[in-house]
């Protein structure tokens, strides 16, 4: 198999003509065209040019992954363009520089005219003044307008701490208000859908939520009702905002108008530790940030990765984390054959016993069911054990319904890794009946199960009862763990490090946010001990070393290193 790792995030674009402009008095060269929200090349905007110049233009409605609306006007900037003579050539100043005409109101030439940086294309010789006094005046006025009818209830607002209204108020707001008129009142705590609560008074009507829902998800549920300052966001009458992507609107809402029923009022955001992670609920492998505090996970948020999930994730994936915090998580080494009481000694005894079993096992008498929810590193180590005892292996397929945006029909996060490493074949699950048959016939005497309840997949309790050795590792109790002779408590992905390969061949790694529960250990750590005991191979004491070793040995991963995965991962040929 020819294997080639591609590390770049985007395919190399054809060379794009550059134009010279000035930002804040500095000469810079910027590409004439840049990718828009869909990645299509469009004329570079003033906002993009300022970003290249390292200057952040305040904005609310602009979002790089949404069509441009231009409605908040926060990004208004003063600008100038080269004066042109009747010969269509630039008019020069006495010192030879080209004369710049500052943009003014056509009907009131003494007043500067701003342009919205988010939507206005740059042109050669243009000068942008993102910090000029006129720009500041425009910004302050927009901010004041946004605040006059705002309830200013930050202390009880869930967005506080990650609110753009707060942030820009620090920069451009005034301490007092000159607004003495009665405020507009709008609906509070609107039940917009099963997962979303809306506070219309906090909404600044940037329409990000509407554009995301309409243009990214393809759902027309959200809209604006009423007129003028009474405008309010609402779901279409008689319907509820319930597609599988609604929680993304909470992320992109720049203020505290849209909140997640799951997360609101649970934790102040500034207390949260943020850890780069992945969603494990399907084969897409959306990049996430885990928000946790004091060993409790509070939320997932999507993390941008243009090769995978843009900046979105689905609601079902996002909310599928509660099991991490479950009370009944396995935290003890147990099992009917484990002959030791103290947990301190349990691991060493269990590892010693299991190593013994595997060393002695006759070729073909062992079978492995390893979950496609496990990491590449774990599957790689399990494969080593399986190879040693010439064992039959497989994983359990999980199929649901996919959609056209992110959610994949493959509900395992690492089916591709399982196949590439050789745990499952082309058709995952096809060996399960053979394993059942082997147990029934007595040829398979030892079954090793990681992260699956095999009683639900054709290897019932009656068969498990026939086994000489049932060695199980899992994180939550089930019928298989109940029958285990040795039960090794493992880790949720947020409690360890590792990598997955998504359905498109993206190898991605995730970091550790929480400590393992009780006496649980990361699977790759104890598997490494087992591999050493059983095969004598060593050298994988760190996740980095383990991954790099795997990438040398497993052809599909050739040339990829743990460090090279970075935050965004690497695409391999699958």
């Amino acid at each position: 198999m020819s294997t080639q790792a591609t590390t770049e995030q985007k395919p190399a674009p054809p060379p794009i003509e550059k134009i010279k402009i000035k930002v804040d008095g500095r000469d810079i060269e910027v590409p004439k065209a840049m990718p828009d929200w869909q990645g299509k090349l469009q004329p570079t905007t003033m906002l993009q040019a300022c970003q290249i110049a390292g200057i952040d233009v305040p904005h609310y409605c602009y979002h790089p992954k949404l069509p441009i609306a231009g409605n908040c006007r926060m990004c208004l900037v003063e600008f100038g363009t080269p004066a042109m003579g009747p010969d269509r050539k630039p008019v020069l100043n006495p010192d030879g520089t080209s004369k710049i005409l500052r943009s003014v109101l056509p009907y009131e030439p003494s007043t500067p005219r701003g342009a919205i940086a988010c939507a206005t294309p740059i042109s050669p010789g243009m000068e942008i003044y993102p910090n000029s006094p006129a720009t500041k005046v425009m910004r302050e006025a927009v901010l004041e307008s946004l605040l006059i009818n705002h309830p200013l209830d930050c202390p009880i607002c869930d967005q506080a701490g990650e609110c753009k209204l707060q942030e820009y108020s620090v920069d451009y707001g005034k301490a007092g208000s000159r607004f003495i008129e009665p405020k507009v009142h709008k609906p509070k705590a609107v039940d917009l859908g099963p997962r979303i609560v809306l506070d219309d008074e906090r909404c600044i009507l940037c329409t990000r939520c509407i554009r995301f829902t309409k243009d990214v998800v393809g759902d027309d549920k959200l809209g604006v009702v009423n007129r003028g300052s009474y405008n309010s966001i609402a779901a279409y009458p008689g319907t509820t905002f319930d597609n599988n992507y609604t929680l993304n609107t909470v992320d992109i809402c720049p203020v505290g108008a849209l909140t997640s029923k799951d997360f609101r009022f649970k934790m102040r955001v500034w207390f949260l530790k943020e850890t780069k992670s992945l969603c494990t609920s399907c084969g897409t492998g959306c990049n996430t940030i885990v928000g946790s505090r004091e060993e409790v996970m509070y939320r997932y948020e999507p993390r941008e990765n243009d090769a995978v999930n843009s900046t979105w994730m689905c609601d079902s994936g996002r909310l599928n984390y509660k099991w991490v915090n479950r009370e009944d998580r396995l935290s003890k080494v147990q099992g009917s054959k484990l002959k030791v009481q103290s947990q301190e000694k349990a691991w060493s005894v269990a590892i010693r016993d299991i190593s013994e079993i595997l060393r002695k096992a006759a070729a073909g008498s062992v079978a492995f069911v390893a979950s496609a929810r496990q990491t590449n590193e774990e599957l790689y180590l399990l494969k080593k054990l399986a190879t040693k005892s010439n064992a039959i292996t497989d994983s359990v397929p999980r199929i649901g319904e996919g959609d056209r945006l992110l959610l994949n029909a493959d509900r395992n996060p690492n089916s591709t890794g399982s196949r590439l490493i050789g745990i499952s074949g082309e058709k995952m699950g096809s060996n399960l009946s053979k394993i059942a048959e082997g147990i029934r016939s007595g040829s398979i005497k030892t079954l090793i199960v990681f992260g699956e309840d095999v009683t639900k997949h054709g290897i019932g309790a009656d068969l498990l009862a026939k086994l000489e050795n049932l060695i199980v590792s899992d994180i939550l109790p089930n019928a298989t763990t109940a029958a285990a002779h040795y039960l090794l408590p493992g880790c949720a992905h947020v409690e360890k490090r590792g990598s997955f390969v998504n359905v498109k061949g993206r190898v991605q790694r995730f970091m550790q946010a929480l400590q393992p529960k009780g006496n649980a250990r990361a699977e790759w750590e104890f598997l490494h001990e087992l591999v050493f005991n059983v095969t004598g191979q060593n050298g994988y004491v760190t996740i980095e070393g383990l991954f790099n070793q795997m990438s040398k040995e497993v052809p599909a991963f050739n040339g990829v290193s743990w460090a090279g995965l970075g935050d965004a991962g690497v695409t391999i040929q699958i």
Partner: protein
Amino acid sequence: MPEQYRLILKNIDQSGYTPDIECYLRHGGYEPLKKAFALTSKDLPEGKKQTPQEQIRQEVLNSGLRGRGGAGFSAGMKWSFVDRKSGKPIYLICNADESEPGTFKDRQIIHKDPHQLIEGMIISCFANDVKLAYIYIRGEFPQGAKILIKALAEARAKNFLGKNILGSGYDLEIYIHRGAGAYICGEETGLIESLEGKRAYPRIKPPYFPAILGLYMSPTIVNNVETLCHVKHIIEITGGAYAKLGTPNNTGTRIVSLSGQVKKPGYYEIEVGKVTIGELINHPNFGGGLLDGRTLKAVIPGGSSAKIFKAGEKFKLKKKSADGTMTEVETDMLDLPYDFDSLQAAGSMSGSSAIIVMDDSVDIVEALANLSEFYAHESCGQCTPCREGSLWMSKALHRMTHGHGRKQDADYLLNIAQNIQGRTICAFGEACSWPVLSFIKKFKDEFETKGAADEARQSSAGPTSDMKIAASPNH
């Protein structure tokens, strides 16, 4: 003697003139259309050919026709911007939303001479290779919509519309679309959104210039009812002849809606620039003067969003003298020729050519409060400065007219308005801020006096009387 020049209104209000097609045909209707269809390709000096369509467009450019909807932009130029190479269909939309307060001219055409509009549209569509056109008519004109639907059916029955019109090989359909009652649907890009079935949120320009990315993201021409009627007359009498009507750069005729405290409010068609504001108000051929015993206080010259003129206001207008040099002539507000350029030079605009006259019985603060309430109600609310600012101004003015003014409110209002104009998505930002800016700049003393009086009353009432603000407009 200043007189009307009835070109568009020629037949309207004549006894026996009815809106049906037979009557229109009896009065020479659809002859200009036949003339347009009869055009053949013309050879140009450099061996190039000019198609009949190009010839019509050239005539419209030569006529100097400027849009009658509000901005006064050259119709021929607008048509020249249309992207004809996109491969997408080109649409034409007749803007019949006529909703600028004070304006009631398009409805005369729609109700009394619908075929004049339809003929103007067919010629304009033919000239621009348009196969599908719309008339967007405001929701408050149910009768107008009925009349137009009937007129379109008549035109279709006579094959002025439909397939292979009059054997020319040209196909055209025109549909009526009724608005639901929103001023912003008159703004051309808001109109387009509404026509597409969406909320009438005006589009940002760039990139959505109608001539390139208009209706259904296709090149689109939006013209006012009256503008399209003029096209018919241009083809009838030629662009050159039309350009001789009116004054240079302000050609043709225009229907002026005259309202307010004059003896004879109504609509009057004039040659552009040949009649002054004063004549329109006072001459017996027009408004016939103020009501008895009254003096003039102010004039809004171009629909309610135009900046107000104060009685007695003088402007320095540039005039070309006989020897070609430019001189500045001091001109009284009443002596301004009613045209596009003079009113602009005087700091206002002819807009939708609606003159609103106010005499000395008018409380200027009340008048502004009334206008502001309209604009606060009609702001679409898409962009921040207008959404929040329009209601803010209206609430402050409401407070002022309910006994809770402050001396500082004049400056307060000026600043709010300054923070709107030029910073919004559409020209509604100007429409709602210009009345405030101009009323207060020109009548500041009245605003300050009122505010100071309220303050004095409040403080003499003692410290317990806190600011009670009467229920604000629009709740």
